[in-house]
C-alpha cells in the first residue's frame, strides 16, 4: 500500500499541505482583476490562517462537542483525500486498490460532520445551509461516480493512482469525447462541492442566500481556521482531479510533470475566478436542474465508453 518514502512522496505531502491556500488567493486575484480592483495579496489565505490560529473563540451555549468536531473532521478528511489522489506524479502516499471509493466517502464524512456542527448551533440559518448542502450533495456525488466509472473502465483499475495515472493520457486518444464530457461534468461538481458561483456565493451579504458559508457562521478562531484550511484542501483536491484527468501531467519528465500539475491547478483556480466574475448565482430551485444536467452529461460519457470499447 505505502510506496517507499521516495522524493515524490515528500513533494506530494509538502504540496498537499502547503499549496492549497494559494488557490483561494488566485481566485480572489482573478475576481479583483475582473472587477477593476487591485485585490488582496495572493498569500492572503495564509495570513488569514495564521491570524485565526492565534485568535480566541466564542462558542454558542447551545452546542455540544459535535460543533467543534465538525471542523476537525472536515480538515482530517481533506488531508487524507489529498494524500490518496495522485498529484504531479502517478503515485500517492496512501494509495491502495479501492481508494477511489474511500476518497469519495471521506469527503462525505467531512460533509456529515460539517452539517452536524451547523445543526448543533440551533440557528435557523445554519439549519437552512446544511439542508441545502445535503440536497446538493445527493445530486453531485453520483456525477463524480459516473466519471470515476468511465475512468475505471478506460484504465482497468479502481485505484486513484491508476484511474488518474498515466493511463489517462493514453485513453485520451481513444475516448476523447467521453473524457471531455467527464471533464465538463467534474468542473460543475467542483463548483458545487466548493460552494462557488453559480451554485453558492461565498461573499454574499445575506445569510439567507448562502449554503456553505452559512453553516460556519458560529465558528470562530482556530476552529474557523480549520474550516478555511479544509475548504482550501477540498478545492485543491478537486482541481487536482481535473488536472490529472486532462492527462497533461504525464510527460515522463518528473520535473516537468510537477510543473504542469501546479500550473494546471492554478489554471483551474483562474477558471473558477472567471466563472465567478462572469456569471450570476443561479436561483436556488434551478440548482438541482443544473446538477442533473451535469449528471446526464457524465452519463453520455459513460455510454460512449461502453459503445466504443
Amino acid at each position, binding site marked *: 500500500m505505502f510506496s517507499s518514502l521516495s522524493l515524490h512522496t515528500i513533494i506530494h505531502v509538502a504540496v498537499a499541505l502547503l499549496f492549497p491556500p494559494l488557490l483561494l488567493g488566485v481566485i480572489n486575484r482573478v475576481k479583483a482583476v475582473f472587477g477593476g480592483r487591485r485585490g488582496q495579496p495572493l498569500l492572503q489565505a495564509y495570513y488569514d490562517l495564521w491570524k485565526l490560529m492565534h485568535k480566541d473563540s466564542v462558542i454558542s451555549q447551545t452546542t455540544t462537542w459535535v460543533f467543534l468536531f465538525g471542523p476537525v473532521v472536515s480538515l482530517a478528511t481533506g488531508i487524507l483525500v489529498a494524500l490518496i489522489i495522485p498529484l504531479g506524479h502517478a503515485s500517492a502516499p496512501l494509495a491502495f486498490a479501492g481508494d477511489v471509493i474511500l476518497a469519495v466517502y471521506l469527503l462525505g464524512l467531512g460533509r456529515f460532520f460539517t452539517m452536524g456542527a451547523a445543526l448543533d448551533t440551533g440557528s435557523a440559518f445554519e439549519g437552512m445551509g446544511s439542508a441545502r448542502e445535503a440536497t446538493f450533495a445527493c445530486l453531485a456525488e453520483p456525477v463524480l461516480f459516473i466519471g470515476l466509472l468511465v475512468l475505471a473502465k478506460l484504465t482497468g483499475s479502481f485505484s486513484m493512482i491508476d484511474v488518474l495515472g498515466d493511463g489517462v493520457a493514453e485513453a485520451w486518444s481513444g475516448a476523447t469525447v467521453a473524457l471531455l464530457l467527464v471533464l465538463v461534468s467534474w468542473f460543475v461538481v467542483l463548483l458545487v462541492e466548493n460552494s462557488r458561483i453559480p451554485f453558492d456565493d461565498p461573499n454574499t451579504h445575506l445569510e439567507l442566500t448562502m449554503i456553505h458559508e452559512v453553516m460556519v457562521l458560529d465558528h470562530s478562531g*482556530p476552529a474557523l481556521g*480549520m474550516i478555511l484550511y479544509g475548504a482550501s484542501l477540498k478545492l485543491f483536491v478537486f482541481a487536482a482531479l481535473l488536472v490529472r484527468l486532462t492527462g497533461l501531467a504525464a510527460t515522463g519528465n518528473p520535473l516537468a510533470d510537477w510543473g504542469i500539475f501546479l500550473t494546471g491547478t492554478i489554471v483551474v483556480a483562474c477558471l473558477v475566478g472567471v466563472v465567478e466574475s462572469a456569471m450570476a448565482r443561479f436561483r436556488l430551485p434551478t440548482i438541482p436542474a443544473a446538477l442533473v444536467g451535469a449528471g446526464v452529461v457524465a452519463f453520455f460519457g459513460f455510454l460512449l465508453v461502453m459503445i466504443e470499447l
Partner: protein
Amino acid sequence: MTNELILVSGIGAILSGIPAAVLPARFRIGQALSALVLVFANAVGGYAVFQRLIQGPQAAVTFPSPIAGARLIVDMDGLSAFFLVPVLLVTAAASVFGLEYWKSSEHPQSFRRVPLFFGIMSGAMTLLVVAQDGLLFLAAWETMAVSALILVAAEDHIAETRRAAWLYIAASHFATLCAFGVFTILRSMTGSWEFGVIENAHGPLAAIMAALAFFGFGTKAGIMPMHVWLPSAHSQAPSHVSAIMSGVMIKMGIYGIVRVSTFFPDIPLAWGGIVLGLGTVSAILGVAFAIGQHDIKRLLAYHSVENIGIIVMGLGLALIGRATHQPAWIVLGIGGGMLHVWNHALFKSLLFLGAGSVIHTMGTRNMEVMGGLAKRMPWTANCFLIGAVAICGLPPLNGFVSEILIYTGLFRVLQDTPQGPVQAAALAAPGLAVVGALAAACFIKVVGVVFLGAPRSDRAATAHEAGRAMVGPMLVLVLCCVAIGLLPAACVPLLDTMVTSWTVGADGIPSVGTEFYLTPITIMAGLLIALCLAGCLALRWRGIADAPRGLTWDCGYAAPSPRMQYTSSSFAEMLVKLFRWALQPVVHAPSIRELFPQRARFESHVNDTVLEKAVMPAVRGGLWLVRWGRYFQNGSLQAYLLYILAIIVFLFLWQ
C-alpha cells in the same frame, strides 16, 4: 457436537420467556431470569458457531418427522453459521434492553407475554437458520412470524397498533404461502423435503420456484414493492422488538432467498439482473421515503428497506457472477451483501435501541418536539451518532466495509467484461452513491433534530438519560460496529466459510480477503482517527475548553427561540420535492389572501405510496372479485370442519 449445541441453544431460547410469564411481577425477578436464560442460551449458540468454524462440517442431527417418510434435519453449515451470529448477538442485547424498557410497572397488560414471545421468536430464528429441510424450516418460520405478530401487537389497546399488526400478519402470511409453494416444488422435483442442489432444476417450474422464493421471502425482507407492512409494524412494536425485527427478523427473508438460490445448479443471467435492479430501486426509494418521515421509528423502518436493498444488490451481483462464471463478482457480491447483513443487524438494532431510549423519556416518536437531547442524554446521543455514521456507510465504521466490497464488485463488472449488456450492472454503483448521500442527509437530519440544537418542547428540556440496562446493550453494539470497521479482516474466515457453503461444489472460488485486500482499510481508519485526535488536541491546546460561551449568531437577532430552528420537515423539504414523483407528499399549506393574514398552520406528510396507491386498491379489487366466496367464509367453525372433511374425502376418491 456443534449441531446438538445449537439445538440446545435454540430450545433454551424458546423456553427462556417462561420465568417472566409465570413468576410474580413484584420483584421483576421473572423478567431478569428470562433475559439471563436467553443470554446464556445465545452464548451457548455463539460457542457452537465458534466450534463449527474451528472444526468444520459435522454430522447432521436428524429426527423422525410427524409427516411419514420425512425427517427433520438440523445441520449448521457455513451459511447458517454466518446468519446465526447476528441472531444470537442482537436478540441477547435487545432482551437485556427490554428489562428496563418494558418494565412490568409501566406495561401491566403485556409485561408477561412480551418476554415470553420474545424468547420464542429468538429461538425460532436460531432453529430456522439451522434447518436443512423444508418441514422444520416452515415450522420455525411460522413460529417466528406468529410470535412477531404478538410482539407487534403488544400495545393492542391502540387502534393504530392493531392495524399495523393486521397488515403485518397479512403480508407475513403471503410470505408463508409462497414459502409453502417453494418447498412443495422442491419436494415434487427431488422427492424429498431435504435441502440440496436440485439437479434437474430447469424450465418453467424452476422459474416459478425462484419467483415464489424471491417475492415471498422478499416480502418478509421488505424489498421495495413488498415492503408495505414494514413501516407501521416497526414503528408500533416496542423498540427492543423493533430492534430484533429490523435487525434480525427481516434478514430471515434474505436468508430464505440466499438458501433457495443454492438449490439451483445454474442461474440464468436475467434472475441476477432482476435481483440487482430491484435491490437498487429498493435502496434508493427506501431512503427517499425515509427522508420525509417525522416519526423516528418509521424513518428507521424505511432505512431497513434501503439497507435490505443494498444487501439484495450484493446478492444480485453474486447471482450475475454465477450466471457468467465470474468468481470475483460472486465473492465480492455475496461477501459484501452478507457482511452488510451483519452490519445492518448491528447498527440498525443499535439505532432502534437508541430511539427506544429517546422514546422512553420523551413519550412520543415525533421528532418535531425533540431537540437538544445530547446534553441531557449523552450516552444515548453518542451511541446513536455512531450508529448513524455507520448506517450511512461512512468510514471508519462497519457500513463502509460492506459497501466498499459491493462497489468493488460493481467496478469489476466494468473491467472484467469487454462488452455486452452485463456492463449495465455497473450503473448500480452511482445508484449506491446516491443512496449513500441520501442516507447521510437523512441521518444528519435525525441526529440534528433529535439530539443537537435547542429543545423544542418542555419534555425535551427535562429529558433524562437511560439506565444501565439500556445503555449497556447499546455500548456492546457500538463496540461491534467499531470493531468490524477497524478490523474487517477478522470477519474473513466466517465470510469464506459462508461463501464456500453458498457456492456448493464450485471450484476456483477465492477468499474474500484476496479479492479485496482489507488491511488498507484498517490503516486508513487508524490514520483518520489519529488525525481527528490530533485536531481535537490542537483545539484544546489553543484553549478552546475555556472559550467564553455566547448566544448563537442568528443574524444579529438577540433572542433566538428554539421554535426558529430548522425542523425535520424543513430540512427534508427540498429532497422530498426532488422525489415527489414517488413520495406524493400530502401538504396542507395556508393560502394567504388578506393583507394581514391570521394564524396559519402548515403540515406535510409522506405516506406509503405503494400501500395506498397500489396494494390497497388491488386488495379491494381482489375482494370484489371473490365476493361470492364470502358465502363459504361464514365464520362458523363447524362449517370449516365440514369443508376439511369434504376435501379429504375428495382426495381419497381422487387417488
